[in-house]
């Protein structure tokens, strides 16, 4: 039965995330935007709080590692379910709670201990044994290289088998939480001549002497989140830390590593949805204080230009949010969602920029000034249309799927 509301059983969780965002993230939001690279120590307590709540099961498996296909297995054992029954599980809970947290502060959400993108990768491709071994780790994600961004099949970091170890060599950039996390999921190729099939991911622990954080970037936005450049020099990793299967199957291609993105793209869409809603909420309030209320029944063209603009922004935002929920709902119900995940990421990414930038414009110098957070949100949102696949990459994926074209046909 068609229903696009927040799932009833997840409402308490979402409300909780909203309270955390309001009362723990907002008060330190500007502080760590100014103090770039300083560790937000307040987050340790928040992470402990979240872990505590998770153990009670109240989060419904939400969080970075919630996106494991079939991650709701534990719950299933308890109550056998009709396999055809509609499921609202960890994926929906994750996007909805991440959106709330990013309504608080996107950069701080990205800095949340044990909630790294590497955790999402582990959840997506690790074996059961690895999953158990890595429990409690805080994993960053290292894919991008100085010469390789969106064409991640072209990475040059190498992994060479030596006994029961792999030896990694190469340089990774844009590693979110690269300095703070206690491990990094690194993409490397076993044999560059075999193309994307030979790309595997490895879990490297921070204390590995072959891994070095070279520097932290100074950024436009999400400044509370550290973004590291990391080098790997004869970095030796135990063979059991290769995530998933070590086989190089040229037929199966890139699927394994790329499967991560089906999980993480809706999460990034959720970040954009949350960040943009912060701007909408405040702007609506500021407009009301200026005597402009949004009338949902009267035509936009008989209202003020500001109200008409706001309606347009809110409509786009609603579309992005529902695409995000659709992608997560499909994952919860084990439907392949690559297309919908990319649609959600594409729409939410560009809507995030449009909404946050337009809200600054609607609010004039008040919006532009650091006295409000509107200008910050419009800087934070930009990265969400870039990382985990830029707007253009998402369009490429959607276009190929809709048109039924291969990557050789539609380059």
């Amino acid at each position, binding site marked *: *039965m*068609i*229903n*696009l*509301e*927040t*799932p*009833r*059983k997840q409402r308490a969780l979402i409300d909780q995330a909203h309270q955390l965002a309001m009362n723990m993230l907002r008060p330190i939001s500007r502080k760590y935007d100014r103090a770039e690279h300083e560790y937000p120590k307040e987050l340790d307590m928040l992470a402990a709080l979240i872990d505590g709540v998770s153990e009670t099961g109240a989060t419904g498996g939400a969080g970075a590692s919630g996106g494991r296909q079939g991650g709701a297995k534990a719950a299933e054992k308890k109550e056998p379910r009709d396999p055809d029954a*509609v499921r*609202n599980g960890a994926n*929906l809970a994750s996007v909805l709670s991440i959106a709330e947290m990013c309504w608080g502060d996107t950069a701080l959400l990205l800095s949340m201990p044990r909630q790294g993108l590497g955790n999402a990768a582990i959840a997506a491709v690790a074996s059961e044994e690895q999953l158990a071994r890595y429990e409690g780790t805080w994993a960053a994600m290292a894919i991008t290289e100085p010469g390789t961004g969106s064409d991640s099949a072209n990475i040059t970091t190498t992994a060479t088998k030596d006994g029961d170890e792999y030896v990694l060599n190469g340089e990774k950039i844009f590693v979110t939480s690269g300095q703070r996390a206690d491990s990094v999921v690194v993409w490397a190729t076993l044999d560059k001549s075999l193309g994307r099939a030979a790309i595997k991911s490895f879990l490297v622990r921070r204390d590995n002497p072959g891994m070095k954080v070279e520097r932290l970037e100074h950024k436009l936005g999400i400044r509370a989140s550290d973004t590291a450049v990391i080098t790997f020099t004869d970095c030796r990793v135990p063979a059991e830390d290769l995530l998933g299967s070590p086989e190089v199957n040229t037929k199966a291609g890139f699927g394994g590593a790329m499967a991560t993105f089906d999980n993480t793209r809706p999460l990034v869409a959720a970040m954009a949805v949350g960040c943009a809603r912060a701007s909408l909420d405040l702007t609506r309030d500021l407009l009301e204080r200026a005597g402009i209320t949004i009338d*949902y*029944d*009267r*035509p*936009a*063209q*008989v209202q003020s230009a500001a109200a008409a603009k706001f*309606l*347009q922004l*809110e*409509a*786009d935002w*609603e*579309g*992005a949010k*529902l*695409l995000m*929920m*659709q992608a997560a*709902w499909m994952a919860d119900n084990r439907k392949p969602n690559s297309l*919908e995940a990319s*649609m959600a990421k*594409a*729409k939410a990414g560009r809507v995030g920029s449009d909404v946050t930038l337009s809200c600054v414009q609607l609010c004039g110098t008040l919006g532009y000034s650091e006295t409000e957070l509107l200008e910050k949100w419009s800087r934070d949102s930009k990265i969400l249309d870039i990382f985990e696949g830029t707007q*253009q990459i998402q*369009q*490429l994926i*959607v*276009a*190929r799927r*809709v*048109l*039924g*074209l291969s990557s050789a*046909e*539609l*380059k």
Partner: protein
Amino acid sequence: MSFLNTLRPGGRHGLSSREARDPIGLAVAAVNRLAQSDFIDRVGLRKQAEQMVFSTTRSGFRVATAAGRTFARAGGRKAGERPASATSTGLFDLTPTEDEQMLVDVVSELASEVLRPEAAGANEECAAPEAVLAACQEVGLSGLGVPEALGGIMEERSAVAGALVAEALARGDMGLAVAALAPGSVATAIALWGTDAQQQTYLPSFTGSEAPAAALALAEPSVLFDVLQPATTALRDGQEFVLDGVKSAVVRGAEDELFVVGALLDGKPALFLVESGAEGLEVEADPSMGVRAAALTRLHLNGVRVPAEALLGDPEGVAYAECVRLSRLAWCALAVGTAQAVLDYVTTYVNERVAFGEPISHRQSVAFMVADIAIELQAMRLVTWKAASRAARGKDFGRELALARQLCTEKGMKIGNDGVQLLGGHGFVKEHPVERWYRDLRAIGVMEGAVLV
């Protein structure tokens, strides 16, 4: 109107009132008028034309409304039967119910097998073929929003089913979909807000085999029109209301036997049931840019008298506001269906059309336009479904509906525009349907009334 008056700028021939004609311009305009000899001929034929068949392809042609059937009065003054609100499991879900899916399957077939093949012709004729309307009637479209207790087919509030049906029909053709949905829209309005007497009097004919043509007339032909403040007025006079004004976008006005007319009563908008043939009621052809198969007309009300029982719903504007929202919702669903037709069509076209030695779909500038159509279309669909689902469950859906309307208006038009653009010059000629969808999609955001779910 005097000859000089017709030469005065101000909206005529697309001239703004700031334009001024100098003496040479006036002379040229006068010569031009004389040259339009067939125009003069037509003026000469004007009297005879009154007896001719009403043609909606010709604007400004005005006749009395159809001499409709007599609706036998029945029922009492108590409140009418109301469909129950749908209940929710509390789960986020994008799966239609089995009943809804069955309905969608039937209507989808109707859309592709009956509506689409007739669409181009109906657009030319400015009329929906009888066979198409009969086929739609046969699947029970007119009883879709009418509860089972009143002879309809739905067990509970059917806004979702209605939206899904409108979407599926418009995937065939928007103009024909509007023509086919108009009578059911009036029936739904009576089911939602009618008294027992109104329901007993009118609904049996809608759920029977010979459903009357009927139209929901809310729009008016004025700039910055606000449907919540119609210029059409209703004045109390004893036991009657006297209606005055002009309504536009009235579907198949010449055939209609029953109108639901929006008018301002004591400063608040209200709905009135007006039967065709009433004294002072005239219908004028108003062919528009698109949705032409719906045979759009203007309805002139000059001192039309209706009994006190003609008021449909409350006089406080509550039913009226809900009617406006549900009508906009139907237009959103129509936009989704038409945009889907565009996506289907351009997907095939850009994969087959070869330029520079390969299909044009292999170029990012083309492929990305298609990707954007797919993304925005799905966003339109989800936002529309959310509003429909809230309406069906009896929740406030004002915000969701406003957002759906905004999105469908803006993105729907962009999709229509891109649809033509992707076919290049071929998109501009009538050999392909994209130019019709371009014209149809402009209706979204412009239209009020006509359809309702």
